[in-house]
């Protein structure tokens, strides 16, 4: 008999305007959302490929180890098409340098070329689904009992030899069999559009993720059906029911998440980023002073034939006197450990800052879990590996890789070697500047004084230094480094198995809420006053 009642509910819904509007909304919103997400994903994928190629080229062309600053570029996750999580808020690459441990991702991760477009409304599939399905669940359940009571049909139903539990089970099932095809249709449309895109390929783990998303969506929908039925049982009229349902919907989907963020910002205070940067600046100044002291004790540091450098520690020198180049080596030998030491000191400050950021995020997340929609959104971002924890894992891996790389450099004594900053072999250096000047001026000058004198007599020209071809004094003369034994960064593949503990806990939470809510509803419905 419950099936007959469920069929009746289904047919009544099927013939209703709300069903047609719901279907229309799904058919409009879901394809548009997926097409936009897909386009964003493809752009992010292109950006990733370009950045990856640039990073590889930069390593391939490095002639000295100061230029070896691997850039780790993380590919966008295919499931981010369905749930972007924080993946479009946080950079997708990390640069490994001596002076700093990676703190957060760098670079742009959003799929929009024009940053001004970021001000426009954007919701991914999971957000749209959460909004749509919760709304539909409430729309189809807010008057499940109160509506029939108003129509008088509930008394008519209960005047028959049918138990209350049968009626309740039938009515609830009717809402489920109405909404389940809509939910399945949303997923079906999305998957078809994704499959039609040649740039996207889902692994077996991704498909399992999609399945888990579907199951979670079902529980999420069930919770809102439960809330709608609860409202229907407790409200005096369907008009009151729709008002209460709408408020509940706004509360869970829009108000509570904002309240959670506000509360976490109020209760878990963090220092401002500017303050952190100021503290880091103090350390940097301290470090630079110490390096300057080292520099003072190395009088040989001076001119170079050809040199290039940058704030990021890059230094490349060719064509110099041995005295100068050796002083430079000594400077690097002493300054790099100092820089590593200060990177560690900076990391202590950054780690504390990061810890507070994470604490604040956790507080907001746990608080937001009082809303089923936030629980659902987080669960989806975990399944799609686009949550804060997945991002943290990547940065942790990058940090470990930096440690590995620095250890490798230390073990290979790279920092105390010439190859650290010059591609020129040691035996090719002239002993003194006078020897080098004599060679390049073809004996016309014997020292820098002679060069200066020559320049004075020739209107400030320094052409005398280029009388003889000196290819060793050009970067292009030297081959790139052989980095075949350089430790490689291996990003541990994001697998659904990694997320399983959280998935189990949060799906379990949704399921528990579902069981508690439906037990309560069943109990209330059994005692429902049908008059």
């Amino acid at each position, binding site marked *: *008999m419950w099936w*007959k*009642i469920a069929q*009746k509910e289904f*047919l*009544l819904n099927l*013939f*209703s305007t709300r069903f047609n509007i719901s279907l229309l909304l799904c058919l409009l919103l879901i394809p548009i959302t997926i097409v936009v997400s897909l386009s964003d994903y493809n752009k992010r994928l292109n950006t990733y490929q370009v950045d990856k190629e640039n990073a590889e080229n930069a390593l391939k062309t490095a002639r000295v180890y100061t230029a070896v600053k691997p850039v780790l570029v993380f590919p966008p996750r295919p499931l981010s098409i369905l749930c972007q999580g924080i993946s479009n808020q946080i950079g997708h690459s990390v640069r490994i340098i001596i002076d700093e441990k990676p703190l957060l991702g760098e670079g742009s991760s959003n799929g929009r070329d024009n940053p001004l477009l970021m001000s426009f409304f954007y919701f991914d599939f999971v957000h749209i689904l959460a909004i749509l399905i919760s709304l539909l669940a409430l729309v189809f359940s807010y008057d499940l009992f109160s509506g029939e009571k*108003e*129509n*008088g*049909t509930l*008394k*008519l*139903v*209960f*005047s*028959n*030899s*049918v*138990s209350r539990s049968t009626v309740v089970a039938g009515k609830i099932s009717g809402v489920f069999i109405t909404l389940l095809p809509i939910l399945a249709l949303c997923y079906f449309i999305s998957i078809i559009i994704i499959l039609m895109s040649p740039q996207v390929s889902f692994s077996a783990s991704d498909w399992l993720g999609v399945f888990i998303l579907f199951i979670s969506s079902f529980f999420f929908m069930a919770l809102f059906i439960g809330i709608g039925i609860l409202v229907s049982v407790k409200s005096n009229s369907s008009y009151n029911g729709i008002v209460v349902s709408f408020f509940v919907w706004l509360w869970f989907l829009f108000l509570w998440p904002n309240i959670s963020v506000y509360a976490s910002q109020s209760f878990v205070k963090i220092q401002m980023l500017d303050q952190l940067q100021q503290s880091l600046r103090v350390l940097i100044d301290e470090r630079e002073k110490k390096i300057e002291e080292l520099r003072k004790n190395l009088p040989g540091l001076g001119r170079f034939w050809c040199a290039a450098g940058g704030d990021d520690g890059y230094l490349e020198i060719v064509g110099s006197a041995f005295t100068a180049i050796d002083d430079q080596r000594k400077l690097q030998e002493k300054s790099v450990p100092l820089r590593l030491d200060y990177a560690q000191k900076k990391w202590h400050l950054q780690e504390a800052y990061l810890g507070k950021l994470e604490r604040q995020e956790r507080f907001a997340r746990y608080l937001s879990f009082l809303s089923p929609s936030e629980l659902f959104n987080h669960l989806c971002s975990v399944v799609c590996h686009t949550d804060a924890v997945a991002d943290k894992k990547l940065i942790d891996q990058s940090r470990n890789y930096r440690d590995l790389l620095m250890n490798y450099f230390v073990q290979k004594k790279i920092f105390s070697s010439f190859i650290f900053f010059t591609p020129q072999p040691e035996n090719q250096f002239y002993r003194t500047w006078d020897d080098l000047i004599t060679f390049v001026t073809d004996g016309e000058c014997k020292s820098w004084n002679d060069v200066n004198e020559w320049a004075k007599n020739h209107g400030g020209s320094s052409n005398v230094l280029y009388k003889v071809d000196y290819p060793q004094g050009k970067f292009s003369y030297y081959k790139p480094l052989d980095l075949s034994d350089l430790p490689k960064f291996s990003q541990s593949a994001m697998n659904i198995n990694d997320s399983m503990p959280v998935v189990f806990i949060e799906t379990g939470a949704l399921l528990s809420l579902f069981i508690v809510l439906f037990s309560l509803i069943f109990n209330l419905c059994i005692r429902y*006053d*049908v*008059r």
Partner: protein
Amino acid sequence: MLEAIDLTKRYEDQELALDSLTIEIKEGEIFFLLGANGAGKTTTINLFLNFIEPSGGKALINGIDVTKEPLESKKYVSYVSENVMMYGNFSARQNLDFFAKLGGKPNLTRDDYYMRMREVGLQEEAFEKKVKTFSKGMRQKVGLTIAIIKDAPNILLDEPTAGLDPKAAAELMQILLNLKRQGKSILMCTHDIFRAKNIADRVGIMKKGRLVMVRTRDEFFEDDLEKIYMDYMQEMIIER
């Protein structure tokens, strides 16, 4: 047969809605329960249908205690309420089909439904029309058809003529007379004293939850039912 023995209902706010009602409605009898609003008429029906639990006494349908065996007792009773909207998005036939199955008649055909609807005077073109387009009279006829289709030996009607035009009300009474001839026990709660005079075998007048008077057809013609009823109503107004 419908039977109430010392049937009492006191709500949680201690209001006494029904006070020791004892009546017996035999096969082929139409019993009209008259009374002002709040006299206890609808409470009586709610108790017979086990929508509420009695505070005392018992209601029996074909000898079955409705409190002890609610599902069993409901097999033997049909119900027609005031102003039933039905399922608006269903046609008249779909409404009948659903309630027939609910009432334990799963094997009825489309023709069976059509035949019953013809019997209550519904026009052919209305059979497959959505009920939300129906007038109140038409909806009430669908409600009555639902009761007829169940073919239960007892019928409870709660103000079925409220809001109906005289013609529709007269048709409804005719249908009740037909049902009475088939041996159904009919309990109808109403304010409509004129209909009561026309078709009731017995009339009971309720006041503040008490059945204050019962008259047979012969008695109420002798005693001038309208005058008695109006006197009771007058008393109610003065007491208020």
